[in-house]
């Protein structure tokens, strides 16, 4: 290779470097403009909310309650027809900004990195904010019109009282709509232009997926109780029952399971007894769930007299998922290298201090992941709950752990078993909801595993 060659290359490259820089300046100007616009729009949104009152954000596509002039609440108005077009248009409009940065990138192949990032944000941010404003304006305007149309004398803008029925659900929706969506769009644009780290893309993708599902679906379905007619039936009690039971299940199974795993991995001597326990845990993981149901029926429902309550269901489920939690927690503990334990012992730590300060914290992410996966198994279980006699028609929310309850799989099972085609349809809807919840949980597990991984 001659000495002239490198310098020739350098001169060949020089103009391109300059050209790239000028593109970059152009992009920066556009990007700054776009960001300024989006900040202004965001400001406008905030002002609008402040002026019009937060109540507008609580407007709902289906469950309409309207406050009449005399102060009484007129609720459960029928869902109007023909106004749902925006629900179809919006998801398509949302997809555009994600294609945008990619398009820009493919056209300008050598965009410098910083510009690329800024562009991603600049394209996505204003669109996200604009869509959001559009949606909020649409809904609030629509409902004021609607309230007039159904002839409620003196209807006010306060269509959904903040502390009325099912307001918890409304708040969740507010979070998804008001914060989650713009945030998701922003994040997605950022990550997308950020060399596409796949796991990071999950969070915004999930939020947007949830939002799209929500748009396609009659929100009334989520916020209604079971009914005799398919058009009026919803899964509110099933969803809340599921979350209620899962919370208690996790509260029981996680500490016990982790405790058992810590004992087996860190304390127990390797002898026939610990081996026997280990083999039995593996066996228990393979026992059919209906057997756990029968056990729960006898022990929790009858002997301990929990009745057919959330608590009995949660205890049964806790037994069911315990082996999974123990095994996954053991796996997590084994990933902590022995050298960490030795290091801690070598400075005079007791066994408990080693576990408390080192082994548990380092393994905790893995344990949580295992716990979530165990929960996502429990959430789909039907048989043990049917065995202990969970109900299928619950037109109220459980107030305490000793109340009757139902869960989503049971509700689905019940609807599928009915002869009317309408129930089969809402069963399909409920299955989609259950699937979304499951996907969310599994995605959370994957993200958590990625985040808490330590390279030793």
């Amino acid at each position, binding site marked *: 290779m001659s000495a002239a060659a490198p310098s020739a290359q350098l001169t060949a490259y020089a103009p391109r470097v300059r050209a790239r820089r000028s593109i970059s300046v152009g992009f920066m100007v556009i990007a700054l403009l776009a960001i300024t616009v989006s900040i202004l729009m965001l400001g406008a949104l905030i002002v609008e909310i402040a002026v019009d009152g937060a109540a507008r954000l609580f407007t709902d596509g289906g469950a309409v309650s309207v406050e009449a002039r005399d102060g009484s609440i007129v609720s459960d108005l029928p869902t109007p027809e023909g106004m749902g077009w925006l629900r179809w248009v919006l998801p398509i409009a949302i997809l555009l900004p994600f294609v945008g940065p990619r398009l820009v990138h493919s056209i300008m192949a050598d965009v410098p990195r910083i510009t690329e990032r800024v562009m991603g944000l600049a394209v996505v941010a204003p669109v996200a904010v604009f869509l959001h404003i559009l949606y909020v304006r649409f809904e609030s305007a629509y409902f004021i019109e609607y309230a007039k149309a159904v002839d409620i004398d003196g209807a006010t803008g306060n269509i959904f009282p903040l502390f009325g029925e099912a307001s918890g659900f409304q708040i969740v929706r507010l979070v998804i709509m008001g914060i989650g969506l713009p945030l998701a769009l922003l994040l997605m644009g950022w990550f997308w232009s950020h060399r596409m780290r796949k796991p990071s893309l999950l969070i915004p993708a999930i939020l947007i997926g949830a939002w799209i599902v929500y748009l396609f679906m009659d929100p009334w379905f989520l916020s209604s109780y079971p009914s005799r007619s398919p058009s009026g039936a919803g899964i509110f009690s099933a969803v809340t029952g599921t979350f209620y039971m899962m919370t208690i299940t996790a509260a029981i199974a996680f500490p016990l399971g982790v405790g058992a795993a810590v004992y087996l991995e860190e304390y127990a*001597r*390797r002898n026939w007894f610990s081996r026997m326990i280990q083999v039995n845990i593996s066996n228990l993981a393979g026992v059919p769930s209906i057997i756990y149901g029968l056990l729960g029926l006898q022990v929790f429902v009858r002997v301990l007299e929990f009745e057919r309550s959330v608590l009995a269901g949660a205890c049964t489920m806790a037994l069911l998922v315990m082996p999974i939690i123990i095994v996954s927690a053991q796996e997590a503990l084994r990933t902590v*290298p022995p*050298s*960490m*334990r*030795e*290091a*801690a*012992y*070598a*400075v*005079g*730590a*007791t066994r408990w*201090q080693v576990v408390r*300060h*080192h082994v548990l914290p*380092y393994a905790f992410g893995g344990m949580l992941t295992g716990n979530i996966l165990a929960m996502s198994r429990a959430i789909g279980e039907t048989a043990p709950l049917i065995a202990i006699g969970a109900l299928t028609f619950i037109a109220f929310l459980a107030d305490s752990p000793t109340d009757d309850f139902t869960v989503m799989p049971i509700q689905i099972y019940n609807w599928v078993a009915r002869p009317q085609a309408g129930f089969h349809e809402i069963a399909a809807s409920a299955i989609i909801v259950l699937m979304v919840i499951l996907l969310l949980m599994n995605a959370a597990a994957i993200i958590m595993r990625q985040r808490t991984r*330590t*390279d*030793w």
Partner: protein
Amino acid sequence: MARNFFTVMRSSAPSSTAARPSTSSTATAPPPPNMKEAAAAGVGVHLDPSLEAVRHDLTEDIEMALELRDVSVFYGTFQAVDKISLPIPKNRVTALIGPSGCGKSTLLRCLNRMNDLIPGARVEGDIRFENRNLIDPTVDAVEVRRRIGMVFQKPNPFPKSIYENVAFGARINGYSGDMDRLVEDALRRAALWDEVKDELDKSGLALSGGQQQRLCIARAIAVQPEIILMDEPASALDPVATLKIEDLMRELAEHYTIVVVTHNMQQAGRVSDYTAFLLAGEERVGRLVEFGPTQEIFTNPLDQRTEDYITGRYG
């Protein structure tokens, strides 16, 4: 007292041709094993367990930090170390050298009861530490490990901040003084302070290998031990980092007793005051062959096998 313990065993004048001095317990000396031939043939050397190890005179009158008497280690039914008797002089660096699998690390891990953590491991004999037998089950292993620290072969900082790495030992041992000063002091002594003083919040894992090892040394120092055991502390490091660790060991020897296991003959020669040479026969049971001041072991070994090993002809 200390001098009585290792009475000089040698009875004949040392010479380079003498395989080993005859002892009173054996009427006739066994034929000297021919190391070169044995090594060339690829067969292990048979060590006669009835033979005593060779011990040199100590060149100084010195207090002992530890005294090992007939220490044997078993892993289940396998015997790893057989009846090693060895003094560890105080505030000196003692090197344990020998080929792989001769039980150096095993022996080292006995000194702060780390072998307790291995299921099936069993230690016999007497390790005197302040007139108590360390091996005695009534002795609190946690207290032993606090007073006899350890640095491992592979740097193993906790996945926490540099500060927390150093402070951990002191914290769990109920240290109530000024933690910031303790951390700074430990890091200074480990010759790491100047490199990390501005980023004490950084993860210990973010440091380079040599820095990590010095962090581990700082962590060991922070609990104010009397003895520091080092298990091939520089074997995973590059020559520059190795040199730093060796300098550090020389400095630390002013305040601490250091026992270091090393494969590296030059390293043993550079850093240690005393050297013990261990060797395992074909039955893979480690035995002490020779112990004495490093200077003498390296220039005037009494045992043919020691000479073969340190001149690189064997092992």
